[in-house]
């Protein structure tokens, strides 16, 4: 072995614990996932699993519960991530640019606390908020507006709002950082030229932070696709599957119905969608590495 080669090996040595850990516990399960998605592996009873080709996927696309979960995942992602977290986060960040310091610090503190709380705790707080006897109905009552049992009538909307409550801080922090990078001469110059607030936002601010908008949208979509605990605590995916997004569907098929093979096929689809988003995210960052 040449000396140069052995030196580069010594230098690469410190990376090996990470590589081993990542191969065994991350790459391994992903490969295993790709394998059992094509088998009929079950939790109990069965002696051996056998290769079933694309059967699981065929079953999935003919399964109404699966299509329902796909639809709800879309609704959940669009309402809570793309519309809710993203817009509210940008709005908060923009208001913070203008607001006075105490108000800014107070609001930031509250929004970030919601984000730092453990997922399950956030689930309880929002469960209490949306329950029939909860705070939301108490407020609606005060305003003489009709109340209802939100977790039963509109569960997907309730969990979407819960995800907005919990996740908005992330977008707010991304956009605050991005807005702080805009040189203030540019906005001032536009102001001198007589551009009003909306036009300044549309023609100057938004184009200047477009890369942050792109990365933020990717990241919050990925985070939202993998939300499990929040929905589990609030509704368990119910009632009658009305808030069952793909992760909850996957869990139910794999463990409550013992169809590990089928559940994994759904997981693989989720993983593929996630990977596509990841690749787009990498393209957005390509100048960084």
């Amino acid at each position, binding site marked *: 072995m040449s000396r140069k080669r052995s030196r580069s090996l010594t*230098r*690469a040595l*410190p*990376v090996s*614990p*990470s*590589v081993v*850990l*990542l191969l065994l*516990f991350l790459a*391994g399960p*992903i490969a295993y*996932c790709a394998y059992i998605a094509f088998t009929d592996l079950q939790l109990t009873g069965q002696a051996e699993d056998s290769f079933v080709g694309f059967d699981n996927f065929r079953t999935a696309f003919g399964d109404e519960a699966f299509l329902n979960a796909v639809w709800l995942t879309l609704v959940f992602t669009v309402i809570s991530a793309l519309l809710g977290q993203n817009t509210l986060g940008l709005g*908060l960040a923009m*208001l*913070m640019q203008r*607001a006075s310091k105490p*108000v*800014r*610090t*107070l*609001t930031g503190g*509250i929004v*970030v*606390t919601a984000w730092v*709380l*453990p*997922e*399950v*705790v956030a689930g*309880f707080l929002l469960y209490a*908020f949306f329950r029939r*006897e909860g*705070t939301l109905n*108490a407020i609606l009552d005060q305003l003489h507006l009709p109340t209802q049992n939100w977790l039963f009538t509109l569960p997907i909307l309730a969990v979407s709002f819960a995800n907005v409550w919990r996740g908005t801080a992330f977008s707010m*922090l991304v956009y*605050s950082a991005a807005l*702080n990078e805009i040189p203030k001469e540019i906005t001032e110059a536009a102001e001198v030229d007589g551009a009003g607030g909306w036009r300044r936002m549309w023609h100057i601010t938004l184009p200047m932070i477009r890369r942050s908008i792109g*990365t*933020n949208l990717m*990241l919050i979509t*990925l985070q939202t*696709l993998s*939300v*499990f*605990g929040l929905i*589990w*605590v609030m509704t368990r995916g119910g009632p009658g599957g009305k808030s069952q997004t793909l992760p909850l569907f996957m*869990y139910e098929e794999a463990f409550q119905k013992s169809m*590990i093979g089928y559940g*994994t096929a759904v*997981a693989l689809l*989720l*993983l593929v969608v*996630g*990977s596509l988003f*990841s*690749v787009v995210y*990498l393209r957005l960052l390509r100048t960084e*590495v």
Partner: protein
Amino acid sequence: MTPMTSMDRSRRYPSSLRSPSSRRTTHRLAADAGLLVLAATFVLPLAWVVLSALDPSANLRVKVPDGITLDNFDAVLTPEITFTPLLNSLLLCGGGTALTVVCAALAAYPLSRFRSRFNRPFLLTILFATSLPITAIMVPVYALFVRVNLIDTMEGTIFFFAASQLPFAIWLMKNFMDGVPKELEEAAWTDGASSLQSLLRIVLPLMGPGVAVVTVFSFVMMWGNFFVPFMLLLTPDQMPASVSINDFFGNRGMVAYGQLAAFSIVYSTPVILLYVLVARRMGGGFALSGAVKG
């Protein structure tokens, strides 16, 4: 609480007199009012948990407590409800974090210090892995753990926690390490120090805040994680607080809202404190500064 450093840094209003200052004041008041309305909405669920924890007869609404009591805390601060789950959480997350930080620091060193044609593909893979939905692989991880007898073991869960947090930790650590000038080590190398010595004696001490951020971030992510222990642990005695709180809620939370609120506060306080501790260093609380900037 002051997590918002980057916002505090935001621009001052220009002192020029181009537009009437009264308009500025109006703008500021409007922005303040808007923020306060949003803050009031966001604070409602938080207000519920704080008020209910102190309320002797809490229900599901935000209301003025019927008196202040610490009975709810008294009731949950028992080994069975609080101390054992928190200790389990501490073991799992402490173990996972330690493993993550050590592996990430070792891996980041050659990536930051030596040029190699493997660096770029490796970093791209790492970055790709940071955004994979971990939730999606939990079913196969469960099946795999059953096969290799790691299911329902603390060490198996710790290994998985570390592996799932590693990509991001390596990425952050490498970015922080890039900020430490190389010249300092070159002197040490001339004196015959090995790579490991210069990493331990020179680089890591100089990037203390960076190491703190990676440590706290990993710990907070694991502390709040519900799905991983929920899937990989089975014995109730081994369950961390994130899972046991759910049983508590299912079994008696339906009546004991005050106790549930008190437990939520006890369980959440460590991560909130840790977050406040490093928020300044993260630059606007922005944990992903390395990954998302631009």
